[in-house]
């Protein structure tokens, strides 16, 4: 469970509201069940005390909301940022997507977030309540009564392979600062690289054919903040609305991943929201892994103003032919 509690965050938010430092709070709002929280802008202490939550299900990355929210009203908006969110925050600043002065960022520690689908795989459907207790989550269901699951076993994929517990941006930090973690986040990519071309093709064919082009991956993505997406722009050669041919599902995901390559912070929101459970993060991680291997370690969002690898070069860069071989894991 989280080391920091909703009450602590509410207290912080209320005191900042009262001090006039901020005019509103971007936070998580209690849902219908114990796991379906919604991003919400709280304007006063009363609503915070009533509906603000922070628990093991508050995975939503708020960085992207700042693009619209900072334009909406006067005064600063308070945003609570988990370590991974701060990378997106910086990347958006690098791309001039919102005014830093309009935000009051409070860094909060994160113990990883739970994946409700993983819980349901263990407990089955019909969940009536969820309670975090130390390293367990107590799940009450209408069918089988209370069950305990290990928090560690139901961590979301992106939290299992958490890249950093360290905040790279904030005005104020609550709790203890963590470190950049030694994650095994590229293992899955490496496994795919180790397959044959045919196997990889079969894998992705089966995954991408599930795509329904709901655009949730794009719309949640903090790197996708285009005024108008190329896939929606009638002037663009790739505009399309549906997957009418298996080509289009590949094109959509290749172009999308390419557009965020070097800018993607690997926050994992795309895979979290995919209603078809396509492991979209693997596409982004492939680019990140290649970038690291071809051009040296680069973490998007680690610092504001850094030059993304695709808008940079050295005269000694690897040649595409060699790169493809290296990317296939022949370096391994």
């Amino acid at each position, binding site marked *: 469970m989280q080391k920091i509690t909703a009450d602590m965050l509410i207290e912080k938010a209320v005191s900042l509201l009262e001090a006039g430092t901020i005019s509103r709070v971007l936070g998580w709002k209690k849902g219908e069940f114990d796991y379906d929280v919604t991003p919400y802008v709280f304007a006063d202490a009363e609503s915070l005390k009533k509906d603000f939550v922070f628990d093991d299900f508050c995975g939503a990355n708020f960085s992207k909301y700042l693009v619209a929210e900072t334009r909406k009203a006067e005064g600063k908006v308070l945003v609570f940022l988990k370590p991974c969110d701060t990378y997106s925050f910086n990347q958006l600043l690098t*791309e001039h997507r919102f005014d830093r002065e309009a935000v009051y960022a409070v860094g909060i520690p994160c113990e990883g977030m739970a994946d409700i689908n993983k819980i349901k795989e263990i407990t089955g459907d019909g969940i009536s309540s969820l309670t975090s207790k130390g390293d367990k989550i107590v799940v009450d269901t209408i069918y089988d009564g209370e069950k305990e699951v290990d928090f560690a076993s139901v961590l979301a994929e992106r939290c299992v392979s958490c890249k950093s517990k360290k905040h790279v941006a904030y005005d104020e930090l609550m709790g203890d600062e963590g470190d950049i973690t030694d994650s095994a986040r590229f293992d899955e990519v490496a496994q795919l690289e180790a397959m044959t071309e045919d196997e990889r093709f079969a894998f992705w064919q089966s995954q991408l054919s599930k795509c329904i082009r709901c655009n949730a991956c794009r719309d949640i993505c903090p790197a996708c903040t285009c005024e108008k*997406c*190329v896939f929606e722009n009638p002037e663009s050669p790739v505009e399309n609305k549906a997957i009418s041919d298996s080509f289009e599902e590949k094109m959509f995901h290749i172009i999308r991943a390419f557009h965020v390559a070097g800018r993607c912070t690997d926050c994992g929101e795309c895979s979290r929201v995919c209603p078809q459970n396509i492991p979209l993060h693997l596409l982004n991680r492939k680019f990140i892994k290649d970038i690291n291997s071809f051009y040296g370690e680069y973490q998007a969002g680690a610092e504001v103003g850094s030059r993304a690898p695709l808008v940079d070069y050295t005269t000694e860069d690897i040649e595409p032919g060699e790169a493809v071989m290296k990317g296939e894991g022949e370096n391994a």
Partner: protein
Amino acid sequence: MQRIGVFVCWCGSNIAGTVDVQAVSDALAHEPGVVHSANYQYMCSQAGQNLIKEAIEEHKLTGIVVCSCSPRMHEATFRKTAAAAGLNPYMVEIANIREQCSWVHKDMATGTEKAIILGKAAVAKVNLNAPLTPGESPVTKRALVIGGGIAGIQTALDIADAGFPVDIVETKPTIGGKMAQLDKTFPTLDCAACILTPKMVDVAQNENIRIFSYSEVTDIKGFVGNFDVTIKKRARYVKEDICTGCGLCTEKCPMKNVPNEFNLGMDNRRAIYIPFAQAVPKVATIDPEHCNMLKNGKCGVCAKVCAAGAIDYKQQDEYISEKYGAIVAATGFNPISMDKFDEYAYSQSKDVITSLEFERLTNAAGPSSGHLVCPSDGRHPHTIVFVQCVGSRCASCSEKGKEYCSKICCMYTAKHAMLTRDKYPDTEVYVFYIDVRTPGKNFDEFYRRAAEEYGVKYIKGMVGKVSPENGKLHVQASDLLADKQLHIEADLVVLAAAIEPDKSARPLATMLTASMDTNDFFTEAHPKLRPVESPTAGVFLSGACQGPKDIPETVSQAGAAAAKVIGLLAKDKLTGNPCVANSNELMCNGCSSCERVCPYGAITYVDKEFRMPDRTTKVRRVASVNEAVCQGCGACTVACPSGAMDLKGFATKQIIAEVDAICK
């Protein structure tokens, strides 16, 4: 919908031999938009061109496809033809059915089929072409030269000679730069001052040249032909127009112990000073850090002795704004600091000096009046060790020195060694080198003279350590050819320090949006074909700011840069390439990706107010392309994730149409 005319050229039998031109013109007649299709023996001939002109009139054509030889041959021809008939020249597309079809395919059937497809692709593209007009911008007929060394001086003189006003901005109180500090010049051994100072005087007397000495450029805006520059004229506390340069103040000033930078700190000057006798402008300057009057309000001697009344303790920095059509960077070089090379004991012994210090020591106007002495005690040195490549060619120790060859050291060391042996034959002179590099007119002869006629001892090998011992310098070195260790008791050790770009170059490059390499040398627009131009239009490079150079090379580059500037300023208007990037502001996110890949600094950002569909307004940061600067490479179009950036003449839609036509 376009009204397209297709003209298939036979090129005699060059095309018609392998391509059925009639079949091609027939097939293309049925393509969407095509209203006229013809073929002719030689389209590029006067008769062929007339055919096109007549068809444009008769069929009211809005676009033209010529299936012929490579556009590199005759695109310009056919564009002129179209223009002559009143059609926008950019409504012409060429299908290359000679070099890329008839000449590489043997078979008539395949050649014809490919020619039709290439023609279809061109038709598909023209269907989406739009008339393009090159942008025009006026040219401010004034040039700015940043840096007043020999490079800047020569560039300014050449530009001024052509009749254009030039301003030189120099940070030091005088122009002259490094060359003014030199004694003799290789390989001719003429005295540097004798050839430089007349040029300095020319500059001062030239009506077209203004000198802003003791000044710096603080801001540059605008683009080729239209730069707005702010120059900060630092307060020198002496009225420049009144000071006669008599020098009385510099003798009377009681502050006697200010290290003299012109002599590299080897002697002292006063708080009010003129760097050297032939300074231009010959005006005194008060060094505010050492002047008692400025620091404590006590003294005022200089004001009292100045008959002209030129002293003004209340002078303020002055900012001057001026417009320029062209800017020349001539910021020059400096020897690198010897701090990281303590194995040579530079900081421990006054008798370990750099080559530039050696120049001052041997210069008649230098601290020792030209007598070669050991700086520590003034004794005559009997053994001198020259160490080459100190900090140059440091591939393995790039944090310490430079990876590149500083180019001038071999020759000036040969000069120093030769002059020493010439003037003081009793002095033993050793030169330690990695390689001796003497590519240049009369260079190798010069070096051989030093070694062979003057008995300079050239030793291939590096000096490992210099240790001051009992007033001497113990030099430990290796002789690679003899494969032995050497121990030399030297009186003087001279270090050929690597040279690096002046520190002012990097901030200047930022202001100019000019690119630099990793060593902070300015990058040229093309290393072979445009060596004196920066990729940023209207910015030119002169002298060592572009790379290590000796004087003759610097002067020739300075002249070349001047020629380029004159060529630019001679124009009343600049017509650009109309195939430039353009940003759709409604789509632009202002993310800066395009700006970062633009090699020309053609993209800037503006805050614009947009009316949103829900009737609100929103201020957004959007990219704006300066068409006068953009060269049309298209790097930005791919960097742009939203597709807001497109390239006129090679628009995404046009290329896609070609792809579609080819892949049918």
